[in-house]
């Protein structure tokens, strides 16, 4: 953290380092305290968060364009010694700077925000409870990070983040306006149903309080990924996504990525998820309704 950031008022670079997971635990705690004390600072953090982008995913699309034939032809001879070459390996993804850490930051803020919604001047008791809840969440995130790292070791770098993270990164860009007015059309829905091999029409009418807006056929790791986009009564964008999966079946689970709630499950050779900035109970209800609407 910058020296000035240790004072009462963290600077933008400290907040960005906080978002990037680059602060030591003690500096992080200082920022947490400063955030809980200052609405202005929380607002500033949110503004800086809006300067985030799916940088890596966007730039990864350039890798395929590297003129490998010419670059290899231009490699000097003799090439580097075997001992140097043996250290050549694809870099492991750095979890500290992963979107996961932004998710952690978002959760921290969310937790703080809830504290403030309850009332200004939080009691020590309530703060203690928040801390316990927060630690439990952080433990969970860490376990997930370890899991992601293990997966990353075995999988190509592009796949390391998994489809749920890719969807969460995309969903972050949606606003009420993105889905206003109805941009749907039966053609996209029919194509999506065909490509993913499931009748999706019932899912457009299944969720209470959600209005279906459109279907999109995306791709993740070469597999079709269907996104059905809805707008909630309150203008919150919600997405229901489906991708083929060869993983063992799993019951619904809740998680938070990029500050968005996710309920996900695996059934009948498909991974499914519902994502949106909604409370867990409402998201779970929506997931349950959508789950019933899909014939699996």
């Amino acid at each position, binding site marked *: 953290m910058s020296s000035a950031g240790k004072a009462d008022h963290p600077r933008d*670079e400290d907040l960005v380092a906080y978002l990037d997971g680059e602060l030591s635990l003690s500096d992080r705690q200082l920022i947490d305290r400063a955030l809980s004390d200052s609405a202005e600072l929380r607002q500033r953090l949110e503004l800086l968060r809006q300067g985030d982008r799916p940088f890596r995913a966007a730039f990864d699309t350039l890798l395929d364009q590297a003129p490998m034939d010419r670059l290899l032809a231009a490699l000097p001879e003799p090439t580097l010694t075997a001992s140097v070459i043996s250290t050549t390996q694809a870099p492991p993804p750095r979890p500290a700077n992963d979107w996961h850490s932004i998710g952690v930051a978002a959760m921290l803020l969310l937790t703080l925000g809830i504290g403030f919604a309850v009332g200004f001047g939080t009691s020590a008791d309530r703060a203690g409870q928040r801390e316990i809840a927060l630690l439990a969440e952080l433990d969970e995130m860490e376990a997930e990070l370890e899991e992601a790292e293990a997966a990353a070791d075995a999988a190509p770098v592009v796949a390391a983040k998994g489809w749920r993270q890719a969807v969460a990164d995309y969903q972050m860009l949606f606003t009420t306006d993105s889905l206003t007015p109805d941009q749907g059309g039966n053609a996209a829905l029919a194509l999506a149903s065909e490509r993913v091999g499931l009748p999706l029409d019932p899912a457009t009418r299944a969720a209470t309080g959600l209005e279906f807006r459109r279907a999109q056929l995306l791709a993740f790791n070469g597999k079709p990924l269907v996104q059905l986009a809805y707008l909630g009564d309150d203008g919150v964008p919600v997405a229901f996504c489906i991708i083929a999966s060869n993983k063992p079946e799993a019951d619904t689970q809740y998680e938070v990525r990029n500050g968005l709630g996710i309920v996900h499950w695996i059934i009948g050779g498909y991974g499914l998820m519902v994502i949106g900035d909604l409370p867990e109970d409402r998201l779970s209800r929506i997931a349950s309704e959508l789950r019933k609407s899909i014939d699996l």
Partner: protein
Amino acid sequence: MEAHLPRLWRYGLSLSRNPSVAEDLVQSTCVRALERQAQFRQGTNLRAWLFTILSSIWKNNLRAEKVRTGGGFADPETELVFDGSASMETNNLFQRVLSEVSELPEAQRQAVMLVYVEEFTYREAAHILDVPIGTIMSRLSAARGKLAGLDPSATCARRTRDGEVEEN
């Protein structure tokens, strides 16, 4: 070394915004890496070492040459494009990100590439560019502020660290 070529090329492309300069940068980096292989300490990060060499060549040679010869930079919008196989909307999103990064001042662009795209730590990025870690922090913060549409003058007046002057 082959495994690192696409990433080096991408980094060179983001610095120069010109594919043929990017190729030259990668080639010069490989030549220099070979010349200096004795300096590479085994067990350290080869990728970081190669990025350090490329950054140094860009800073000391090619960038100066481009400016001197009046070559200027190619229009970033025509250079940083890709043939996406994903949906149109994903393509549009990624294209927008590429364009936004292209338009950042070079120093900020470099920090964004190293930390957010290549996922080096702040410390590694500082080492690669041979600058203090605080410089990486202020460049990233300026880049985020710009992408978030914050007023740069207000940000600078209030936030810029003493004694640090951005190169662009």
